Every structure is written in structure tokens, then in C-alpha cells.
């Protein structure tokens, strides 16, 4: 297998990484809103969030992607397939991240909130200055885990025609008749990416303010 083929796979990994990173970020923001809704104590907010989460956790990502890919043009939105892919992945990871965050918020010790109440914080200030940073710290390892899951799941967006690592490998395998070399290379590239994320996560965790040094 030539260096040129391997290089094509490495180039395709830009799509894998790009789509995953954007989806994680959008999913995180959505998850913040969802987890706030889950914990709002108001059924009006909680119920739709619960429905959203059980839907996206209960339907395979592949089916979600195909559904969104076909649904968007059907309702008159002709968006590039990359947008459909990002929407699908973001919604899916939002559901998982929301559950993580909810657990994180619920684990913020009550005394820390009471201490903030005692020095005059408004509920909003308690949320932003105390609950969010502490919940993030508690859920950071789960977030890194989710990032790795999403990186691997991104292989599924090949079904909507995006030539990321997996799709590139399939194309190259069928044109070169070197499937073992090519899929091994693809596996290696995934491994390096995921391993780097895990490593960065471990450093990040240690760099968080106040973490055990």
C-alpha cells in the first residue's frame, strides 16, 4: 500500500474530526439547555426534554441520520449532506451529554449552593458561578468518553455521502483490492485520534482549577 493511499485516509480524517468536534460542541450547548429543563422542576420544560432524550437514545444513530437526511428536503430544506450529518450527530450526542450533565448538576453538594445563597447570590449567579463549573468538573471524564464515542460513531455519516475515514477506506478498498491494508490503516488512524483525545482529556482534567494535583 502506497504512501499516497495512506495520505488520502489521513486527509479524510479531517472530516471525521471536524464533524465530530462541531457536533460535540453544538451537542454540549443543547445538553446544557436540556439538563436545565430536566432539573427545572416544571413539567412544561421537563417532559419535552425527557421525550427528546429518550427518542435520541432509543433510535440507532444510523436510522436518525437517514431520517434527517431524507426528512429535511421533504420539508423543503435543501441543505448539504454535511449539515444533515452534523444535525443528526449533534442531536444524538446532546441526548447523552444531557443525561451526564443532569447527573453532574445533581451531584453538586447542597452545602456549596447554600454557601452561595448565604453570601447573596441570585439563583442565576448560583447556576453560572457554582453549579456549572462544579458539574462540568464532575462530568468531564464522561464528556471525554462521549467525545470518543462520537468520533467512532462518525463513521456512520458515510451513509449520507460524506467521505470521511470509513467511506474513503471503503472506496479505496474497492478500487485497489487492498482491503486488509486499507482497513488496518483506517483502524490505526481512528486509534491514534481516540487515544489523543483520551490523553488530552487526562491532561485537561488535571489542569482544571482545584482538581487533585
Amino acid at each position, binding site marked *: 500500500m502506497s504512501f499516497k493511499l495512506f495520505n488520502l485516509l489521513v486527509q479524510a480524517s479531517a472530516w471525521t474530526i471536524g464533524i465530530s468536534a462541531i457536533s460535540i460542541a453544538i451537542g454540549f450547548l443543547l445538553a446544557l439547555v436540556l439538563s436545565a429543563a430536566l432539573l427545572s422542576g416544571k413539567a412544561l420544560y421537563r417532559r419535552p426534554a425527557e421525550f427528546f432524550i429518550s427518542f435520541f437514545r432509543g433510535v440507532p444513530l444510523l436510522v436518525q441520520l437517514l431520517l434527517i437526511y431524507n426528512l429535511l428536503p421533504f420539508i423543503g430544506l435543501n441543505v448539504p449532506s454535511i449539515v444533515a450529518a452534523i444535525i443528526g450527530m449533534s442531536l444524538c450526542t446532546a441526548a447523552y451529554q444531557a443525561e451526564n450533565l443532569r447527573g453532574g448538576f445533581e451531584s453538586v*453538594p447542597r452545602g*456549596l449552593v*447554600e*454557601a*452561595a445563597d*448565604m453570601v447573596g447570590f441570585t439563583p442565576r449567579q448560583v447556576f453560572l458561578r457554582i453549579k456549572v463549573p462544579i458539574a462540568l468538573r464532575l462530568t468531564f471524564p464522561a464528556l471525554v468518553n462521549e467525545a470518543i464515542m462520537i468520533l467512532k460513531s462518525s463513521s456512520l455519516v458515510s451513509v449520507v455521502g460524506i467521505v470521511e475515514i470509513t467511506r474513503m477506506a471503503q472506496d479505496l478498498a474497492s478500487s485497489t483490492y487492498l482491503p486488509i491494508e486499507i482497513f488496518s490503516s483506517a483502524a490505526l488512524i481512528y486509534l491514534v485520534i481516540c487515544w489523543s483525545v483520551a490523553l488530552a482529556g487526562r491532561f485537561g482534567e488535571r489542569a482544571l*482549577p*482545584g482538581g487533585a494535583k
Partner: protein
Amino acid sequence: MTLPAISVRKLVKRFGQTPVLQDIDLDIPEGKVSCLIGPSGSGKSTLLRCLAFLEEASEGMITVNGEALGFFENARNERERLPAGQIRTVRSQIGMVFQQFNLWPHMTALGNVSEALKTVHKVPKKEAEARAMAQLVKVGLENRAGHYPSQLSGGQQQRVAIARALALSPKIMLFDEPTSALDPELTGEVLTVMRDLAAEGMTMVVVSHEIGFAATIGHQISFLDQGRLILTGAPATVFAKPRHPRLEQFLDTYLDRGASMLA
């Protein structure tokens, strides 16, 4: 007679159906140290938390320097809840120190002490940190300003927690067993800070198992048993023999150390 710093009238607190505090009438004198003692489960923490409005009393009224805390009696003599903003204003006169310190783990000692000045009172960062530093000096921790709570001993954490409360210049300080989560050799440094504070004339309410501290520093001792205030008075009166039988029993059973000290 000056106005009491805190006055509690006919306070009842129930958790669900279970009454935990009943018919509490208590005045906390200004500029004095008031101690709450009593057996485990007698309701000391609950009473203190009611004074901080961390628990809402089920019945009765609490006033802080004459202002209603949490609830007031409206024109039709009904008990009505104050708006949240007003509750915060009245509560701003009160500082609270917890058994478990409750420092925010993601902020340094200096951050913990300056945070409310910056966030709540909009004091510029530099000035807030200078004021916070002055409080850390007061509790003897100026050289630990940049440390996170996880890098401090329990006694140091509790002193930071005291500095955090003091930074907002409260008129009243509440302490819920401030030394009982500490190793015995660390209680001294916290008690010293509290003694200094008492000597400055701070109004303090202290829940403590340190009967020795209560007897020597306290100006007023209140003994709680099964949710009722059995006795309130000066230490000399409360601890004088013959003691109230329940108090005698409490001192015998729960506080070998303190009881022998007072025997």
C-alpha cells in the same frame, strides 16, 4: 435593653408531619456570643438553619435587627412570604459557617473570599481581592491565598470559610459545629479565630459540642432537647448546680470531656 440582633417567636419547624422544633422563643443579644447546645437530633442545626433562612420555619416569626426574615405578618394577620430579593437583603446581615466548610472547590482561597464581593456587590476585582486579602490576614492565611481548598487542611479551610463570611461585613455570624469535622489538633486554630471575633464584639450564634468553649466564651447558653428550648441563660446560671435534670443527663451522657470539666 437594646433590640435583640435576632428574635425568634413561636417558631415551629416540621419536616413533613414530624415536628423537629416546637414553640421556640429566643432572643439573640447583640454583640454577644450565644451558644446552642443539646443532644444529637435535638434540632440545633435546624434552628440555626432557620435563623439563616436555609430552612423555612413552618410557623412563627424571625426578625433580624427588627426586620422580618422570610415571612412577615400582613395586614390581615396572615403569615406571608417576602419576595426573594427582600429575603436576600435581610439575610445579607448574616454570615454562616458550616460544619463541612463548603468552600467552592474550583476557586482559590482568595477566590472564595472575594467571589461574592465581585459577583454580588460588583466591587471591582482589584479592590475585592484587596479586601479579601485583609480577611485572610485576619484569619492568619495570607500565605495560602492562592491555594485551592483541596490543598488546605481542614482547619485552614474552615478559617477561609470564616473569612469568606466576614468579607461581606455581616452583623451576625452563625456557626454550625465549626470544629466537629476537624482533627482534634486543628480545632484550636479555628476556636482562636472565633475568640478574636467574639472579643471584637461580633454577634455570634454557635452550635457547638465544645462545652468548654461555650462555657468560657458564651454569654448566653441555650439548651435544646427534643426540639424544645429547655433553658436559656448565662453560663453561670445554666451550668450551676443543681442543674436541670435533662441538662445533667446530657452532660453526663454526651460530653464526658465537657462534663468533667464543669463538674
